[in-house]
């Protein structure tokens, strides 16, 4: 094949999302993350002999919500199936999942397409299933231990159509999906805790071809950055294989983010036969029209609708609206302060400026913001009332963000209020002028820079608590 062929990458995603139910899917054990090994389990989730599952209805409610929020059709008669395979983290040696009749089908999410415009990523199905446990290798005893705490935590698997053509599209879809699921409250989608993880099916083909190439699957990717690198790395690898005249093998590969390369795990020939069959321990789930309508009506305003409203009604820029609505927590920060009466644009500016900067500097996700949202409004209010300067407010926000302190108290305790007594300001400036005769002379001989220096010295003398415009005016007055 000529090296001049240009290639297209085709991808489909399987996204596993842990649902935010309090208890597990088939027993009443807690779903709380962490905990000492094997302390969040019982005979049911550890698959002891004779035990039976009892379905947590909240899982069905959440799956229906997720389906409706992603424009799916709800399968009103759906069933569980058993997926059989041996692995020590799977105590029953089968996973209860849905193969034949998944709870949601035929949905989609709209994203910005690569190269502009909008594009719908189709959702083939959403099915409910249980999570497995975790193997922990103990290097001291060179043995492997099993922790069943995650066994039976409810998951939904959201299976997309092979509609992605670039890493960017994948990331946009995942961001959007994450925001939707967080908004409707069905999952916290914490990738670092594994509550959202993606498997990527990827193949390449010459541009213009309508046939799919042979695909590989990369499993359990749990950061957006790793996903982007894995996609680019794997499509490059496949293109190289094809350009060298080879064939891509259908296999499961493991992406090693440290080595920036993927490694074959198992090929199609070794693929397991899961011997799916209907789960006889659980009766079919019937979902009424009324239940679907009630659920639909109970859905909150979804991010897409919010984004549009922020632009059309609140006058935010497209970019700001998109950024803020990408996270349930940024929206909460925005809307709580909007409701308290602060101007939309001012709050948006703070979020896009200081909040984003602090998030980025600290490497935190919006859900990890540890301060009370009303504190941002309190800061904005103090600036509005000229109680503190904008610069002071920014410094105070750093403490609010990092330590969660109350900004009003903080300003009080650290004596940061703007000095409004012009007499005091004037006295401070006069002292600066007296101490910097050289700069005064320079200014008078026409050097504008000297004025900036004197302003800076005056602000410093006032510990930043004076309005810089007032300081400038008084300074100019003294200098004549």
């Amino acid at each position, binding site marked *: 094949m000529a090296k001049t062929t240009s290639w297209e990458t085709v991808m489909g995603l399987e996204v596993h999302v842990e649902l935010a139910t309090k208890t597990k899917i088939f027993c009443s054990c807690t779903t709380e993350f962490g905990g000492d090994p094997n302390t969040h389990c019982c005979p049911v989730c550890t698959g002891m*002999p*004779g*035990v*039976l599952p*009892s379905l947590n209805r909240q899982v069905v409610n959440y799956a229906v919500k997720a389906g409706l929020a992603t424009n799916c059709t709800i399968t009103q008669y759906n069933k569980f199936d058993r997926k059989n395979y*041996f692995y020590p983290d799977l105590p029953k040696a089968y996973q209860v999942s849905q193969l034949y009749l998944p709870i949601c089908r035929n949905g989609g999410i709209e994203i910005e397409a690569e190269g502009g415009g909008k594009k719908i990523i189709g959702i083939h199905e959403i099915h409910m299933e249980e999570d497995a446990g975790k193997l922990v290798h103990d290097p001291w005893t060179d043995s492997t231990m*099993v922790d069943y705490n995650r066994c039976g935590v409810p998951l939904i698997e959201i299976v997309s159509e092979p509609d992605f053509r670039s890493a960017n599209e994948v990331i946009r879809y995942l961001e959007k999906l994450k925001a939707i699921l967080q908004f409707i409250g069905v999952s916290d989608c914490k990738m670092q805790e594994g509550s959202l993880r993606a498997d990527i099916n990827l193949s390449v083909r010459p541009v213009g071809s309508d046939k799919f190439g042979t695909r590989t699957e990369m499993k359990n990717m749990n950061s957006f950055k790793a996903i982007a690198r894995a996609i680019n790395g794997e499509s490059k690898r496949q293109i190289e294989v094809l350009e060298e005249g080879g064939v891509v093998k259908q296999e499961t590969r493991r992406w090693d983010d440290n080595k920036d390369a993927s490694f074959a795990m198992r090929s199609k020939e070794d693929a397991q036969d899961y*011997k799916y069959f209907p789960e006889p*321990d659980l*009766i079919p789930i019937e979902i009424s029209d009324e239940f679907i309508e009630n659920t639909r009506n109970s859905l909150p305003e979804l991010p897409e609708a919010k984004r549009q409203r922020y632009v059309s009604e609140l006058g935010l820029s497209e970019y700001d609206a998109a950024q803020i609505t990408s996270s349930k927590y940024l929206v909460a920060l925005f809307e709580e302060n909007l409701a308290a009466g602060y101007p939309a644009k001012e709050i948006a500016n703070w979020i896009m400026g200081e909040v984003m900067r602090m998030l980025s500097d600290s490497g935190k996700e919006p859900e990890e913001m540890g301060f009370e949202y009303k504190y941002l409004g309190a800061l904005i209010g103090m600036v509005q009332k000229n109680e503190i300067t904008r610069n002071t407010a920014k410094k105070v926000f750093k403490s609010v963000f990092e330590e969660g302190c109350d900004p009003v108290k903080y300003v009080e305790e650290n004596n940061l209020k703007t000095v409004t007594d012009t007499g005091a300001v004037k006295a401070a400036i006069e002292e600066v002028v007296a101490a910097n005769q050289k700069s005064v002379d320079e200014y008078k001989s026409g050097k504008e820079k000297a004025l900036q220096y004197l302003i800076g010295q005056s602000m410093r003398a006032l510990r930043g608590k004076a309005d810089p415009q007032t300081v400038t005016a008084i300074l100019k007055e003294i200098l004549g």
Partner: protein
Amino acid sequence: MNLKDMTALELGAAIKKGEISAVEAAKFSLGQIDKYDEKFSCFVTVQDDVLARAEEVQKKISSGELTSPLAGVPMGIKDNMCQKGIQTSCGSLMLKSFKPTYSATAVEQIMNAGAVPLGKLNMDEFAMGSTTETSYFGATKNPWNVKCVPGGSSGGSAAAVAANECFYALGSDTGGSIRQPASFCGVTGIKPTYGSVSRFGLVAYASSLDQIGPLARSAADCAAALSEIMKKDVKDNTSVKTEGVDLNSVLNYDVNGMKIGIPTDFFGEGLDKDVAAAIEAAAKQLEAMGATVEKFDMPIVKYAIPTYYIIAAAEASSNLSRYDGIKYGYRAEDFEDLLDLYTKSRSEGFGMEVKRRIMLGCFVLSSGYYDAYYRKALQAKALIKGAFDKAFEKYDLILGPVAPTTALKIGENLSDPLKMYLGDIYTVMINLAGLPAASVPCGFDSKGMPVGMHLIGNYFSETKILGAAHAYQQTTDWHKRTPSEI
């Protein structure tokens, strides 16, 4: 007082009246076990707290806290029902070391009614078999003839009742495992409607077919025990709310005017002459009591065995996958790696019959074979259910043999599994349809071995089945006969 000839209800009444204490009753049963169990091997485990339990129950009876008609009556539990702190082996090396931290719902319910459990009863390994020969703990013998099998898989339960080692027992029935041993041992047993007794804590063989039910000396005893466990359970998603079984209605049941159908297809090739004759005689007796008996065709019978063995094996292969040597149960001593650990533990921990069914199940579920076998079996299952639905439009009960023969000689079927499977022809259909059915003693063959008749009812007609059986037992004494050795 001669406890030997008493039914569970008679003993319960005597305890309630203070004529005998629960402790004395327990001592009697423990004495019977001492005397006979070495010979018949009914029990895998005899509990060491029987007398303490009997004392506790007696206190509650005396104080009026326990009023069930079976309170204080010694009984046994098949070894596939979990009982907290007691070895629950399922007749397998695999679970020889397993002591559950929880009890099966049916066990809890029967305990709440004041049962005094004596111990755990032998069974075919994981309830797979019709002879109780596949137990890791050795074969149970038929009290009517120790050279014969007691039937299975609830062979320990049936033999213990026949040998007077206990007054009633809980068994489980996936394809005839209560009814066939009841027939072979001359006791009464009923498999209730699927979903009417909780399966929570019953170690699963084939989940869509398994049901717990009682075995006892009479239909009335079965009704009394069943009424305690036929209750909806939130821990079993397939459990349904039923009206239960009403002991009073059973005791006052009249078969006059009842319509009974006999499928001609139940009397085909392979049916023992003596068994056929005993069933015909029972039909005549019921007719004499005022029922109308009529023959009808049910050609679907011929699909019962393959359908059952596909579905049951498929579910079993999945249900028994959890016994992998990792968490509990048997683990091979030497292994190279994970696969070797699995392979050796399962190869050594399971017996032949269990392995045969697991392999059969894996085969019918494998990709490429699922449609040809499992899906077809599900279709056949629906047809079988449909055939019974149609029959019950016309009949109150269906009557036939429980098994084509009486108890076979020990070892006779073990080498020929297919022959053994064919012996399940009449019983497996009932599990496939999910219907209730009882085995009721109705005669003996020429060698003196008991014959049971099969009374099959529509869904949730346990009161009708046991009522008709009780009425029949009021006019016959087959159920009162005991093996000469006892």
